[in-house]
């Protein structure tokens, strides 16, 4: 097979920090090449070099056998390289169509011809089974659909080599299967796909070869067919990793959260929750399994006070918690690990120490009579940084935006677990995290359960739901359509329920 992309001895330094230290990558035409590494290992830096966002300090890049310097994303696009970033590069108030055509709009004279563009997009979306609403605004659509928009954006630009940075992080199991089909049809066409992922299972199912990077250094390139998941994991983190979650058996206690007949509309005024009922008791993790867009986001928004429901009832430990404000929700004992950690979980420009007291800054010992106590705030931060292994160790006064995704999530978890509320809601808590960080998040969710707290887990990762939950509730079309006890969960059965099928009684 011909070589599509070859990167040789790539070195990239940021000041004194070496992000890439002599990395080699050879991607053949028509193959799926996975790049595996922990957060901060240098995968994204390497891809940003290939996509022209960074200039390598040294090293050579060959595209289709010709040595080239890329320099700008435009040049990369011209060379047939397209990239879907992990953090979406979309303009929220613009429509899906406008976002996709941005920079290469069809025009009639000087007037935009969005109709023509829209047709092309609908065609692409049909061909690859990437369902999007071309007229919806980005700010109104789910994270899952935003991802699909990003993928179409790259296809729209006619890329031959697609870089997908954590493409499945927000997709549902069904959508992942569909994406795998898309990837297959792309490679059949002779296109190459570079897949950046932490998910070993995906690498096993769809990649042909895999390059492993650790701490900026090139470790190895392996043939996926003959390498096991645990071998891959060990190469990535440099030690053996446990996949299963240790969980002692417990009897759940009193009911903490009781939701009955909850009804609500979404932003389009369409019914999104249709008489939904669910309860969570002390000492249990209840997992909500479902395809994105079936009402899980709205349910969490109502519980945390960001959205108002139309009817129904919500109670926390017997107290009415229907249509509360975010403050009331927190004061009644609900804390949450939000779906979008950068939008809702953290004030990115605030320091780690400030983020760790975001709900409690008005309480002692962090402040007294309206004056902040910096010494206590910093001591609190350092204590949590130590306990939750947030890196770098001296990050108390650093802005949260300087931390890696995994460490940002650790900050949120440190804060919410320390709040020690009766109910912890976690929404896709391991999205975009590497194996080590996932292990960490899971450990703390189980720990909360073992401390006799109630945990409500919403996740699009079926594995995560099945591994952690004591009880699984399947959500479909705004209702709970099935309940499965965690130990008896079966992927096929859940998949069927999530797609709207009925459970065999």
């Amino acid at each position, binding site marked *: 097979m011909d070589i599509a992309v070859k990167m040789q001895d790539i070195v990239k330094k940021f000041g004194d920090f070496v992000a890439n230290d002599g990395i080699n990558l050879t991607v053949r035409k028509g193959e799926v090449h996975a790049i595996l590494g922990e957060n901060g290992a240098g995968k994204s830096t390497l891809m940003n070099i290939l996509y022209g966002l*960074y*200039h390598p300090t040294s090293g050579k890049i060959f595209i289709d056998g010709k040595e080239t310097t890329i320099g700008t994303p435009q040049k990369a696009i011209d060379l047939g390289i397209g990239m879907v970033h992990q953090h979406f590069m979309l303009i929220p108030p613009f429509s899906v169509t406008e976002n996709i055509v941005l920079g290469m709009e069809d025009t009639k004279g000087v007037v935009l011809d969005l109709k023509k563009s829209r047709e092309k997009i609908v065609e692409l979306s049909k061909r690859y089974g990437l369902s999007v609403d071309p007229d919806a605004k980005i700010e109104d659509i789910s994270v899952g659909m935003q991802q699909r928009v990003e993928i179409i954006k790259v296809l729209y630009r006619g890329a031959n080599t697609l870089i997908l940075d954590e493409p499945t992080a927000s997709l549902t199991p069904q959508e992942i299967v569909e994406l795998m089909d898309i990837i297959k049809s792309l490679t059949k066409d002779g296109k190459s796909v570079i897949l950046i992922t932490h998910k070993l299972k995906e690498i096993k199912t769809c990649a042909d070869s895999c390059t492993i990077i650790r701490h900026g250094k090139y470790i190895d390139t392996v043939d996926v067919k003959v390498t096991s998941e645990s071998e891959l994991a060990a190469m990535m983190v440099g030690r053996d990793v446990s996949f299963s979650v240790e969980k002692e058996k417990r009897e759940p206690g009193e009911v903490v959260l009781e939701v009955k007949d909850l009804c609500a509309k979404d932003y389009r005024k369409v019914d999104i929750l249709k008489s939904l009922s669910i309860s969570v008791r002390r000492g249990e993790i209840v997992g909500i399994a479902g395809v994105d867009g079936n009402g899980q986001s709205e349910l969490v928004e109502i519980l*945390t006070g960001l959205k108002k429901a139309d009817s129904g009832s919500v109670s926390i430990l017997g107290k009415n918690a229907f249509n509360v404000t975010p403050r009331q929700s927190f004061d009644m004992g609900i804390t949450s690990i939000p779906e979008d950690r950068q939008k809702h979980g953290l*004030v990115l420009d605030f320091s780690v120490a400030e983020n760790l007291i975001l709900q409690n800054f008005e309480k002692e010992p962090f402040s007294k009579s*309206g004056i902040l106590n910096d010494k206590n705030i910093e001591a609190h931060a350092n204590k949590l940084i130590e306990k939750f292994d947030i890196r770098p160790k001296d990050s108390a006064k650093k802005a949260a935006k300087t931390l890696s995704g995994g460490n940002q999530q650790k900050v949120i978890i440190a804060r919410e677990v320390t709040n020690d509320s009766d109910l912890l809601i976690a929404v896709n808590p391991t999205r975009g995290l590497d194996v080590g960080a996932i292990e960490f998040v899971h450990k703390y969710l189980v720990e909360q359960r073992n401390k006799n707290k109630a945990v409500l887990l919403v996740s699009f990762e079926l594995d995560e739901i099945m591994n952690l939950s004591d009880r699984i509730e399947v959500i479909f079309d705004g209702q709970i359509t099935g309940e499965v006890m965690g130990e008896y969960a079966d992927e096929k059965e859940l998949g069927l329920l999530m797609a709207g099928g009925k459970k065999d009684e």
Partner: protein
Amino acid sequence: MSKKNSILSSNAFYTLISIIIGFIVGALLLSFAKINPMVAYKQLFNGIFGKPKFMAWCLIYAAPLIFTGLSVAFSFKTGVFNIGAEGQFVVGTLTACVIGILIKAPAIIHIPLCFIGAALAGGIWGAIVGILKIKKGVNEVLSYIMFNWIAFYLSNFVVNLTVIHKEGGGEATKDIADTARILAPKAVIAATGASAANWGFILAILFAIIVWFIINRTTLGFKLRAVGFSNSAAEYAGIDTGKSFLTAMAFSGALAGIGGAIHLMGMSGRIPQFAGQEGYGFQGITVALIASSNPIACIFAGIFYGAMKYGGGKLSLVNAPSEVVDIIMGIIILFIAISSLFRNLFMNHGKKGAV
């Protein structure tokens, strides 16, 4: 981060470069106008540093600018762009003027009364815009600008009321009572030779420290900054974002209002009928930008602008237009605004860091 990088990433470095570029562009324009820039800048320099009296005048000019600068800087820190400081300054001046003329009281009561009135007027002026934004979703920049004009015409209306207007002609109000003036002791005035030497500058420093303290050290400031940086995360954490915006906009308005009172009670003593907007509020935007919204830096940025304004007034002595100063200030702002571009160029995309 290495020392070189920490310099290259600091705001102060780019502000300094922007100031230098501002003067270079100013020199070019002067050359086009067939005026020797060296002569003009020498005149500017002497006009500022030539005598202690000149320097005192620069500080007198600086005081109201520091206040409007603080007003805008405070709004920036809380996620709002207070382009309405101009109107808040005007209603502050107006309220202090009316109280200063109509009320008879000893200085110890009269002065605080004027300040409180001015702060309330400016605060309410800002809060109305805040309420429109929160309750009705009206874009605050739009309503701020409209309220600037409402303040402008309101002032001209009040200036012409019989009880306020100067007797026997003149397009201005009566002078405010001496009990409402904040002039420095006679000895200080005599020593500096500046007839309007007043407490304004001292108050400006005091307020800069107060504003710094509120922003950085109080729970109120924490709340306002959280909302300013990330509305969504603040709301999620249970902070009432609407109330925060309103508080921030009212407080910002009050600072501009006090600035107006300082200008009146320290320097002018009366309000003329305006022909056009005086620009203290807009100049406050410049001050805040030069100071990178740091309240303490606003003191120095305010002095800089005050000095340029005062010294610039003397450029006509060498037949150079005093507008050169406005051009220089404009260029400085332009370059500060695009400094992040230079930062990325200098640091070779390093700011994004390793991902």
